[in-house]
């Protein structure tokens, strides 16, 4: 294979060969190469196939706007990715690259048949057919369409890499480290402002890396660059990040930066994340992202070997790669002429420079002649030939806008330049307006909505001198606006390459334009005629044109295609470009790895999991866990060979027979303190509190202002001005926030304060006939006999030597206590009680058993038996409402018409006719199982368990007018059979007299 590498040229390290493979073929490049430059050095232009027509494609650009040279790349197991831009991916030792969207191979691809049917697959064709016969859509057409879509293939292994994220704050963030960005960084950096300068490529310098002959401040460009970087590096207030893409510009100068840390490294240091997401808050932002070169639109402008002239110049000067020996240059801008000159001076033999403009600066044509390059001014290009590499180009004279006599010119590359587009993607993210400059035929920044400065080619400026000056000015202004004292520094520039150009629609042709394959969006195979077809079909808005043709929706995000598409659309619409307008640029600026957004949130640190102080004991004793809100709770404690059902039956029996221990630490706890504590509680909760004695507790019910049940819990009064409020595990934060809301904004006059003590206390529940026997020996300073410490008593005391809050409370119907001790002692308390409990065959139980035991007593679980549509009356909790209270949160809603109307769903008990049948939670209930669908459903089963204590299955359900259906038989139609059950209004299935409770 021929080598196009020029010795001792470019910024690559000619002494450092790097091995890599492309489609399995072993190749060699140099340190400092991109995958694309290395392939070009190996004489490989053919790098991909297009999306729709599978046309052979070569690399077009040298940057992140590359539409064609997309490849699968792989480092090792779990390190494959599709659609890597060969122009961005730096060469690393052992890099494996594979071409995409072709079968069997890149050279011969069966899919290329689409190319010959191309005229069938015009824009939007799929909206117009594939509709008959109806059934064929699902089975034939759609699978085929989908199979044909897509570029690369998905990874199939879990990602082996890790990712990071970091917040940053800076005075000035400069995006783009080309000449303008560097000048801005110098100006701002010298002022002492905190400066971040970021660039998406491996090396700062931007266009300077492709323009080595310019002389700045008396130094050759690359020396000036080195000196500038040295000065910036020496400034402690300046940070330079390379391989860092500003992906999105968010509110108030928040910028997202995606930094690639390891993909370029031969070996990755331990602990190094692959990529890092920076979230930078900048006082001032300077956008110096330069301009993007546009292709020219002519038939066959997509053959391998046809590329952007600026890219060819970059490959030559930055990477020391000659992309061709006999290039033809086709341009509408002066810049491409210099590419020809550089190539000629590097030993290539440019055949001709075709300029579509009618007059070109004499200096350029003279210099071309010196190099022996033919100059064809005011011409058009109407075709190219060559299957896997361009071999000739068809050039025509143009007479009053019409292409005339053609001429074929042999060549091995075509270097095109359709002018340059200011890169304003990020600016557009801010919803800043764009203003059309008819002189430049380009959109320039208009109205700004953020503290942002745009400088350099982004403002349509051309030439190093003007760009440097503009960057320095912007950097100075940004520093001043950030409150620094900055003075502007001028730069001198010699051997500059100023230039101008024009922006044109598709080039005129002497052939049938309806048959021309003149591409605008290379990757999506959108041609000029597709745009015109869209307009012909009534797509007037540029957004419609974009969506109908998919122009600009490829992975280059329209960087290359937007303006060409606009010029052609506006011509077809007969409107000026600004009247047609531009489609919105959407973040990210370049495609960004999902993992980078996820950052540290992967595997163990994906999301926090709260564990109680007693959790280690549960884990050591083989508990099965269930997630409840952010907590993980012990679900049940299976003995060897036990399934959940068996374990739960054992736990239930043991608790009712003797005593069970339960970790209730996750319950929300709120300290309500202050002289107005009672008043506050009266207003928040439905229950009355004024008469609740100190040392007593009461079930509390909390509604939303809409009258529906939000939360509940046992609330103890520990002093005249002090309540210990408990909430549901999931409700803790919500309830505290709701209380604070009312307290701060509705009743600021109340003297009461709220403090979350959820994690101050670890809570151990002892439940069962032997609970007192087990607890008594540990309690100091308190008599807990039935008489002295009855059901719903509360007190502060000492338990097992720890300061404690003790509640006589039961969620099981058994004699029960809940011991709260400072969290650090929770595990010790549990272990002491566990040890002492052995004589009573104490049993640790989890949330599932807790649910069974409470269901046997008909105690509801908010969120399971109620669902945010139930009122206290619906849930049979009218008794929990303070009848004499003038008001409480939600009271007014309870008298809304539909809250008191008949037909509400009400909570009842349900007993299956077959006592062995356990209904499925969520099962629906009907009165007539034989009615046709849709059936009239009365309600659903909310809780359902097997109960040994009751000796049968038990269930709760919400049923329309349930309270009036005592004894009624209802039906639960399951997929394959129908179950029957009777309604019982009283949901207390076990020990209705509460004798065990008050034992």
């Amino acid at each position: 294979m021929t080598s196009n590498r020029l010795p001792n040229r470019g910024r690559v390290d000619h002494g450092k060969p790097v091995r890599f493979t492309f489609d399995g073929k072993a190749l060699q490049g140099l340190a400092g190469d991109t995958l694309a430059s290395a392939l070009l050095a190996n004489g490989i232009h053919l790098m991909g196939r297009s999306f729709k027509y599978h046309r052979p494609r070569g690399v077009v650009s040298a940057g992140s706007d590359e539409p064609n040279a997309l490849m699968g790349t792989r480092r090792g197991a779990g390190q494959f990715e599709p659609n890597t831009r060969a122009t961005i991916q730096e060469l690393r030792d052992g890099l494996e690259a594979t071409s995409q969207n072709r079968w069997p191979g890149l050279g011969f691809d069966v899919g290329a048949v689409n190319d010959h049917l191309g005229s069938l697959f015009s824009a939007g064709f799929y909206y117009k057919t594939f509709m008959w016969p109806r059934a064929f859509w699902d089975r034939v057409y759609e699978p085929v369409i989908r199979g044909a879509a897509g570029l690369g293939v998905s990874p199939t292994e879990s990602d082996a890499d890790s990712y990071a994220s970091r917040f940053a704050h800076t005075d000035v963030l400069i995006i783009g480290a080309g000449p303008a960005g560097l000048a801005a960084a110098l100006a701002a950096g010298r002022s002492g402002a905190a400066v971040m300068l970021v660039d998406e490529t491996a090396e700062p310098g931007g266009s300077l890396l492709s323009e080595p002959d310019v002389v700045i401040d008396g130094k050759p460009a690359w020396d000036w660059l080195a000196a500038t970087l040295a000065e910036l590096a020496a400034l402690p207030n300046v940070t330079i990040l390379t391989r860092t893409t500003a992906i999105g510009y968010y509110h108030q100068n928040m910028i997202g930066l995606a930094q690639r840390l390891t993909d370029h490294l031969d070996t990755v240091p331990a602990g190094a994340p692959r990529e890092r997401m920076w979230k930078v808050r900048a006082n001032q932002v300077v956008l110096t992202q330069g301009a993007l070169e546009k292709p020219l639109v002519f038939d066959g402008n997509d053959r391998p070997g046809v590329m952007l002239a600026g890219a060819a110049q970059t490959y030559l000067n930055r990477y020391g790669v000659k992309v061709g020996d006999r290039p033809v240059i086709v341009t509408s801008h002066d810049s491409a002429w210099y590419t020809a000159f550089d190539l000629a001076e590097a030993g290539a033999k440019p055949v001709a420079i075709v300029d579509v403009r009618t007059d070109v600066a004499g200096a350029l044509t003279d210099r071309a002649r010196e190099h022996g390059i033919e100059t064809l001014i005011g011409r058009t290009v109407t075709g190219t030939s060559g299957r896997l590499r361009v071999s000739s180009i068809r050039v025509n004279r143009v007479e009053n806008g019409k292409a005339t006599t053609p001429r074929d010119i042999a060549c091995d590359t075509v270097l095109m330049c359709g002018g340059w587009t200011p890169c304003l993607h990020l600016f557009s993210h801010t919803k800043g307006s764009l203003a059309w400059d008819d002189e430049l035929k380009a959109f320039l920044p208009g109205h700004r909505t953020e503290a942002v400065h745009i400088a350099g080619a982004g403002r349509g400026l051309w030439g190093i001198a003007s760009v440097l000056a503009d960057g320095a000015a912007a950097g100075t202004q940004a520093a001043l606006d950030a409150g620094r004292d900055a003075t502007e520094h001028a730069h001198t520039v010699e051997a500059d390459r100023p230039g101008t150009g024009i922006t044109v629609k598709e080039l005129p042709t002497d052939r049938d334009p309806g048959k021309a394959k003149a591409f605008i969006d290379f990757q999506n195979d959108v041609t000029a005629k597709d745009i015109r077809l869209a307009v012909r079909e009534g797509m007037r808005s540029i957004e419609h044109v974009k969506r109908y043709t998919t122009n600009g929706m490829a992975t280059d995000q329209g960087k290359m295609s937007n303006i060409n598409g606009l010029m052609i659309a506006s011509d077809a619409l007969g409107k000026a470009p600004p009247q047609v307008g531009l489609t919105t640029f959407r973040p990210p600026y370049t495609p960004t790895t999902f993992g980078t957004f996820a950052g540290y949130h992967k595997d163990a640190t994906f999301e926090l999991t709260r564990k109680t102080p007693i959790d280690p004991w549960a884990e050591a004793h083989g508990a099965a866990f269930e997630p409840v809100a952010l907590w993980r709770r012990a679900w049940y404690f299976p003995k060897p060979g036990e399934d959940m059902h068996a374990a739960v039956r054992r736990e239930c029996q043991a608790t009712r027979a003797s005593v069970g221990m339960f970790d209730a630490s996750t319950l929300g706890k709120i300290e309500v303190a202050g002289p107005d504590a009672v008043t506050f509680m009266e207003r928040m909760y439905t229950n009355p509190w004024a008469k609740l004695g100190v040392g007593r507790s009461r079930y509390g019910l909390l509604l939303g202002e809409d009258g529906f049940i939000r939360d509940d819990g046992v609330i103890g009064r520990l002093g005249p001005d002090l309540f210990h409020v408990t909430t549901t595990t999931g409700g803790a934060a919500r309830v505290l926030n709701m209380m604070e809301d009312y307290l701060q904004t509705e009743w600021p006059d109340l003297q009461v304060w709220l403090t979350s003590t959820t994690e101050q206390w670890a809570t151990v529940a002892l439940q069962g006939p032997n609970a007192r026997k087990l607890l008594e020996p540990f309690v100091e300073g308190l008599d807990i006999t039935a008489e002295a410490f009855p059901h719903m008593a509360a007190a502060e005391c000492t338990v097992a030597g720890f300061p404690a809050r003790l509640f006589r409370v039961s969620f099981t119907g058994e004699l029960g206590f809940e011991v709260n001790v400072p969290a650090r002692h929770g595990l010790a308390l549990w272990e002491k009680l566990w040890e002492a409990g052995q004589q009573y065959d104490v049993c640790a139980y989890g949330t599932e058993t807790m649910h069974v035991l409470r269901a046997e007593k008909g105690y509801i679980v908010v969120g399971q038996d109620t669902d945010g549509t139930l009122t206290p009356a619906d849930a049979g909790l009218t008794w929990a409402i303070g009848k004499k209270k003038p008001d409480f949160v939600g009271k007014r809603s309870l008298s809304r018409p539909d809250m008191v109307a008949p037909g509400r769903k009400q909570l009842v008990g349900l007993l299956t006719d077959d006592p062995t049948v356990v209904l499925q939670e969520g099962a629906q209930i009907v009165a007539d199982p034989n009615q046709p669908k849709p059936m009239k459903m009365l309600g659903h089963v909310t809780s359902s368990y097997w109960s040994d204590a009751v000796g049968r299955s038990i269930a709760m359900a919400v049923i329309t007018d349930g309270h009036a259906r005592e004894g009624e038989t209802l039906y639960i139609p399951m997929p394959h059979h129908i179950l029957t059950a009777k309604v019982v209004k009283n949901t207390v299935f076990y020990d209705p007299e509460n004798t065990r409770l008050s034992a």
Partner: protein
Amino acid sequence: MTHFSLAQVIKGALSGQKNWTPQWPDAEPKASYDVIIVGAGGHGLGAAYYLAKEHGITNVAVIEKGWLGGGNTGRNTTIIRSNYLYDESARLYDHALDLWENLSQDLNYNVMYSKRGVMMLAHNVHDVQSSQRHVHSNRLNGVDNSWLTAKEAKAFCPPLDISPSARYPVLGAALQRRAGTARHDAVAWGYARAAAARGVDIIQNCPVSAIRRGPDGRVTGVETAKGFIAAKKVAVSAAGHTSVVMETAGVRLPLESYPLQALVSEPIKPIFPCVVMSNSVHAYISQSDKGELVIGSGTDQYVSYSQRGGLPLIEHTLAAICEIFPIFRRMRMLRKWGGIVDVTPDRSAILGKTPVPGLYVNCGWGTGGFKATPGAAHTLAHTVARDEPHPINAPFTLERFTTGRLIDEAAAAAVAH
């Protein structure tokens, strides 16, 4: 208007695509109409289409402030399903699903309705209870939905990680096989083309600044950028902007507009065979027929018309997606955009008459608007034509916020204990 068919496509291929005509003309407003619909999204255009097709009312204008289909119709994640819990919702969305099934043929426009199946994951005991409740309710309502074990879910969607150690383990899933996705733009364009063919005027780039009422209180027309346009009846179907428009008629709504973000990945070959939703982690994902992974997240927390939305939400959504589908962590986000979703207190739509004679409203679809498109359009057309709601949209009144008869799907999925 050219009839769409394979024959025409071939003819186009041979004629250099000369045979195609505008899919809808760019109409200039007439002085007056029988019906004006404010908002040329799928809902508004569809309503115009059904007014013409099923009620013979063709003197209709659809007025759009921007380009048709440019609101939530062109910004959503195109999920279509009907497995809602409550009878009212299930009927409405299933009615839509019935219409989706043959919409391409009905409109002579391929909207690419893809019956891929929508799977909703259950990650904990509460999710399971809630999913089972949905599945049973749907079955008795005659709505397709079935329960899958974790293994079955994995079999249906291979990229799914069902390892029990996951932070959000998959305990099972509810699958509606009949559900899926459709090409959002095609829905707007198809309705626009079919409505225009029946004489409906589609007026783009024409913001409506006010609804005018006569002395009797009745609607008389709308003030627009192109002047006053008279109308016997006005239907507002402007999604997030409905509050603003209705306010001008003196109708205040229980509505708030929030940013909703969505994104797509770079295109890849088919890997993801269905739609997967997880309410616990607020994320949903499918693969488009272009090969992009289409991912939606929850709404941002504050009222906004900015169509922007913040980075943290996207970070959270993608973290969740990568946790449930670990093979996608190295995939790249290609494009992210924002929409404005109009949300009611019970997260169900308002579709029907208003206190103002001749004024009708269709709003409050939250994140459910696209899937409802044909159903909402069809029943809105009925309501406008007959001046009384169709039985299917009858429950979705404004009055329910006074009486308390809410249709609260979200509350039904209330978070537990």
